[in-house]
């Protein structure tokens, strides 16, 4: 398995992902700089990690779309390549149109840095293959713009096509979008992550890659490791 991790100026979760794939999964991993115009080799998976690419100037994820590497990522994804976007990576994939919807500012107008529970809603995605639907994963969030939004008519088709991959939930797995304790950023339908129609691109706001080792993971809960 060959993995590429895309790094923009301001990306800060790339090494978490590199550690996870190189040290824990023993995959071949290379980082790719945003000005590179090739992913190199023949990758099976591309990760857009979290951070604050371009300082979140203009809009979170907005300026990264003009980076040369994003053209390559698009071509890779259009050929069916598997792409995962985490946090800012999710914002980037939504902003450049590879994933549906957009991320608004958190409903409470605060940067949120805490643990959340997320429920796996579909196992037809690059992150959830082989995982039982309903599995609850405990991992951190760290974002200011994580409030998932999509126009009502598109929300309907998103739900119909089963493109919601993760929802925020209580530690017991109950989803209640109006409950800001379990759905802290106010996301519509408590959506924490979605995939595209072809189901080869997935993005989510929570950081399962920060919850893959006992030392920093959530005690007594399913770790994020199984998502990788």
């Amino acid at each position, binding site marked *: 398995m060959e993995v590429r991790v895309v790094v923009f100026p301001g990306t800060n979760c790339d090494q978490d992902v590199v550690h996870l794939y190189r040290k824990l999964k023993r995959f071949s991993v290379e980082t790719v700089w945003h000005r590179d115009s090739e992913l190199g080799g023949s990758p099976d998976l591309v990760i857009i990690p979290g951070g604050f690419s371009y300082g979140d100037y*203009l*809009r979170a994820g*907005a*300026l990264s*779309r*003009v980076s040369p590497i994003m053209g390559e990522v698009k071509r890779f994804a259009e050929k069916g390549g598997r792409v995962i976007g985490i946090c800012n990576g999710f914002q980037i994939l*939504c*902003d450049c149109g590879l994933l549906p*919807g*957009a991320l*608004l*500012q*958190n*409903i*409470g*107008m605060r940067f949120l840095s805490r643990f959340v529970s997320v429920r796996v809603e579909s196992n037809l995605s690059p992150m959830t293959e082989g995982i039982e639907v309903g599995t609850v994963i405990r991992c951190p969030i760290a974002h200011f713009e994580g*409030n998932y*939004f*999509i*126009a009502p008519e598109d929300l309907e088709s998103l739900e119909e096509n089963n493109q919601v991959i993760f929802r925020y939930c209580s530690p017991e797995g109950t989803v209640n979008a109006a409950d800001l304790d379990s759905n802290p950023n*106010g996301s519509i339908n408590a959506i924490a992550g979605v995939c595209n129609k072809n189901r080869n691109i997935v993005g989510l706001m929570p950081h399962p890659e920060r919850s893959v080792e006992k030392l920093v993971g959530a005690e007594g809960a399913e770790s994020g490791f199984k998502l990788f």
Partner: protein
Amino acid sequence: MRVQIIVRLKSGVLDVQGKAVERAIESLDLLEVSSVRVGKVIELEVPGETLSAVEGELEKICSQLLSNPIIEDYEIRKA
């Protein structure tokens, strides 16, 4: 010619920043205000003196980069 581009959240999209600013204005105890929306102004210098000559390309700049059409509207005007 100097051009001003105003980017705003669409009317149906919750503007949490606008809500917070509205509450802050209320606390000043001055004029009663409502429906506060916060947007962005981007100013740029473009060639020529008429908007119509550059409008097509400005539209592309706005829809492809300066705004996210899913959540935002934009307005182009001469500064």
